[in-house]
C-alpha cells in the first residue's frame, strides 16, 4: 500500500494485524511516534492522519492506505521549531520528551480550532496524553503561551 509520511511517498506491505504505529516505527524508521501503552491511553503514538489528530496504536495500518501522515518530525526543526514547540521549550514543559508527540500535536490541533482557549479547554485537549515527568502544569502554560504568541 502507498501512503505519505512526513511529506515522503512510501510503499509498504503491512501484515493484516499491524497497527500504524508499528509500521511507522519498524518499517519506516520513525522515532517521532512511540509505543507506550498500546491501549489508547498514553498518547505518545499520536500523529496527524489526513489532518486528524489520532493515536496510531488504535489504527490498523491498512486503514491508512493513501493517507497523509504527519508525525512530530514534520512539524519543525531544531533550528526552526514550530511555535508550539518553541513554547514548550520556553516553559520547560517536558523533561524526557516521551509524551511530546501527543502533547504537541494535541496542542496544535486545539489551537487550529480554538485560537484563544481557556485553561479548561487546554487541559481537556491535553487529557489524552500521559506525562511521565509530571509536567502537566507547564504544558498548560506552554499552550497558553503559544496561543498568546499567535
Amino acid at each position, binding site marked *: 500500500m502507498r501512503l505519505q509520511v512526513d511529506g515522503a511517498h512510501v510503499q509498504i506491505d503491512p501484515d*493484516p*494485524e499491524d*497497527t500504524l504505529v508499528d509500521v511507522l516505527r519498524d518499517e519506516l524508521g520513525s522515532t517521532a511516534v512511540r509505543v507506550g501503552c*498500546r*491501549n*489508547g*491511553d498514553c*498518547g505518545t503514538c*499520536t500523529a496527524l492522519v489526513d489532518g*486528524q*489528530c*489520532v*493515536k496510531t*496504536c*488504535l*489504527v*490498523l495500518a*491498512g*486503514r491508512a*492506505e493513501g493517507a497523509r501522515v504527519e508525525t512530530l518530525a514534520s512539524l519543525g526543526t531544531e533550528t526552526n521549531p514550530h511555535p508550539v514547540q518553541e513554547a514548550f521549550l520556553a516553559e520547560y514543559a517536558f523533561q524526557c520528551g516521551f509524551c511530546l508527540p*501527543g502533547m504537541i500535536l*494535541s496542542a496544535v*490541533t*486545539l489551537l487550529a480550532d480554538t485560537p484563544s482557549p481557556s485553561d479548561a479547554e487546554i*487541559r*481537556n*485537549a*491535553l*487529557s*489524552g*496524553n*500521559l506525562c511521565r515527568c509530571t509536567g502537566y502544569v507547564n504544558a498548560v502554560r506552554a499552550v497558553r503561551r503559544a496561543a498568546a504568541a499567535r
Partner: protein
Amino acid sequence: MTTTFARSLDEALTALAESAAAGAKPVVVSGGTLCVPAMVRGELDAADVVDLGRTGLNTLAVGSVIELGALVSYQQVISSPRVRAELPLLHRMASGITGGIQIRNQGTLVGALCAARPQSDALAVLVALQAEAVVVSASGTRTAPVADLLVSPGTTHLAADELVAGLRIPACLHGTGYVKLKFAESSWPVVTAAAVQDRVVLGGVAGTPQVVPLPSRREVRAAVVDHLDALPTEHRWADLRAPWAYRRRVAPEIAARAVELAEEAR
C-alpha cells in the same frame, strides 16, 4: 488473520457474509479505540476482521431525526451546532468523553454500542434518547431500538453477518440532563445517569442500561433505590473501579443530579 479494508458498505457486508458462512465470528472495526487494542492483546478472537474505515459511513444528517453513520466520531457530534441545538444530551455526553482530542476524533457511538461495555458513557444516553440502530447484512436491513440490541456486558443481538451501519435518534431539544461519576480525568465512568422527561437511565449499575421510570420529581432517589434493589444479583455490575454496593450507594444521587439538570433545561 484476514483483514478486509472495505471500500463500501456492500464490500463490508460481503466480507461479513463470507466469514459468517465459514463459521467465523468476524470483528467489525469502526473507530478502533476499543477493538484494536483488544485484538492486539489477543482478547478478541480476530480470525476475520472487517475494517469500515474506508466505507464513507461518516455522514451526520440532522432533521427531526438525527442520523449518524457508523464512522461518525464524537468530535463530529461535538462540532455540530445542529446536534448541540437539537440533541443537547448527546452533545453534552460526547463533550465529556475521556481520552482527549485523539479519542474524540477516533471513537464512535456505533463502536461504543457494539462494544456494549456497561461502563460506557454512550449507552445510557442512547437508550434515554430512544435511539434506533440500523442493522444491515447482505440479506437486508432492519432497525432495532438500542435498548433491545444490548444483551449483556460485551454482547449484542447482532448476528455474525450483521453490522450496525448507523443510528437514528429523534431530536430531543429540551429537558435533558447527563451526569457521570468518575474518579480521574482519564478514567471510565463508574455510574452514569441520563434524564429525559419522565425517566432516568442509569449506566454502570448493571450489565445493560437500566431505565427507571420517575413517578414524581421528588421521588428520584427512592425510585432508583427500589429499582436497584430489585435487580437480580447476576445482573449487578462491578468492575475494578467500584464494587456494586458502592454503585448502588451513589447512583441515586447521580440520578437526582441528572434530573435536576433536566429540570433546569426545561
